[in-house]
């Protein structure tokens, strides 16, 4: 592994997909499946006058995390916003099916999804959307086979659209301050419903509504980390040890916690209203305080759960 990836780009947000993989996994090396030299690229971009990526914007393969075998996928958020196209999506489907089929004492300990995506690649809309459904189906199969699937979100694209839905189908979610996890993008809401409903240029608003701090305090993500790759690695190792099973009891518990959230906060339109109702300290400042100060805040009742 080159020193380039060790000394620079220790920050998850700034790092490329490959740099995140190098910093996240054990040093002994990552075996990539269908690597860039195979040139499995999108055939659908040329007609839109777009050049492609040799790996179609997603790296999939196997490595070790804390000595244990894991399968991993990392999206390159800088390529077409990390969006799902036919080949991109199929690579992730194949990885998940491999995990499912290898389940057992010698099989993967976890599947790590380094999500960095705006959702469906519109130039390949149907294929991308269907791939997302296939990915969700495959994640559920992997979880049902007893292998946890972890979502790691902290890049510039966030986890939007189908990516936000995929995130919430995982066993555990780790996110850093930069992360946004949502369905509709703020611009799309503004276009459809007007600037009063969502001023997409108000960055602070975007992060209050979609950002990792709001998600973490409400139980929408499971671990909030500071932004280094090392922080993500530590969180992943810790969380793999205890993950919810995909079963009726889990989904019933999720039904309860999501119903309660609606009952308690269903009339809120901004994060500080939720913090006020929940009795959190200094609601107006939670978005601005340091990560250390933020991590000292106690989460809303019910946010710490196994119901995913």
């Amino acid at each position, binding site marked *: 592994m*080159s*020193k*380039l990836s060790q000394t620079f780009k220790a920050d998850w947000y700034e790092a*490329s997909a*490959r740099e995140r993989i190098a910093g996240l996994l054990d040093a002994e090396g990552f075996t990539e499946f269908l*690597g*860039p*030299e195979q040139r499995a690229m999108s055939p659908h971009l*040329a007609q839109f*006058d*777009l*050049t*492609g*990526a*040799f*790996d179609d914007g997603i790296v999939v393969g196997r490595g070790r995390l804390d000595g244990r075998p894991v399968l991993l996928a990392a999206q*390159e958020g*800088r*390529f077409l916003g990390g969006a799902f196209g036919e080949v991109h999506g199929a690579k992730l489907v194949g990885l998940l099916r491999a995990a499912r089929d290898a389940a057992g004492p010698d099989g993967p300990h976890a599947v790590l999804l380094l999500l960095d995506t705006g959702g469906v690649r519109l130039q390949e809309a149907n294929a991308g959307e269907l791939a997302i459904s296939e990915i969700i189906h495959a994640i559920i199969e992997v979880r049902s086979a007893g292998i946890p699937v972890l979502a790691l979100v902290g890049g510039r694209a966030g986890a939007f659209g189908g990516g936000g839905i995929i995130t919430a189908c995982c066993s555990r979610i780790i996110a850093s301050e930069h992360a946004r996890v949502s369905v509709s993008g703020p611009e799309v809401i503004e276009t459809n419903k007007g600037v009063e409903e969502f001023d997409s240029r108000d960055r602070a608003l975007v992060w209050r509504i979609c950002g990792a701090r709001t998600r973490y305090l409400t139980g929408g993500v499971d671990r909030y980390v500071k932004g280094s790759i090392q922080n993500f690695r530590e969180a992943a190792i810790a969380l793999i040890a205890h993950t919810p099973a995909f079963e009726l009891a889990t989904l019933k518990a999720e039904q309860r916690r999501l119903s309660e959230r609606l009952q308690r906060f269903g009339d809120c339109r901004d994060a500080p209203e939720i913090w006020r109702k929940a009795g959190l300290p200094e609601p107006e400042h939670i978005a601005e305080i340091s990560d250390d100060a933020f991590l000292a805040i106690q989460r809303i009742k019910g946010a710490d759960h196994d119901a995913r």
Partner: protein
Amino acid sequence: MEQFQVHGASKRRAGGHRRQVITGANASGNLEVLVERVLPDLECQVEVATAVTGFRPIWEAVIKEFFERASPGGLRFSINDGGARPDTVTLRLMQSVQLMEDKA
């Protein structure tokens, strides 16, 4: 869309033993470079795919200068360009050779 190759000769084989490296990203103002050690020792080649048309002469000049500076014998470079400026192209190509030669 343009796709073209620039061939060159090198005085020596590029050092190191790495067979392949990929760096950069096809994003606005950036480029992705895949390097493969697949050519005869004293040959080099850059393959470019770009949506920004009409700049082939500049690409060729940048690439020929890179061949002179780096002597990347045996290496084939494949580029997916996102509209990078010439100095960014040079930087990426130089970075990619350094990674191939294990000097980084």
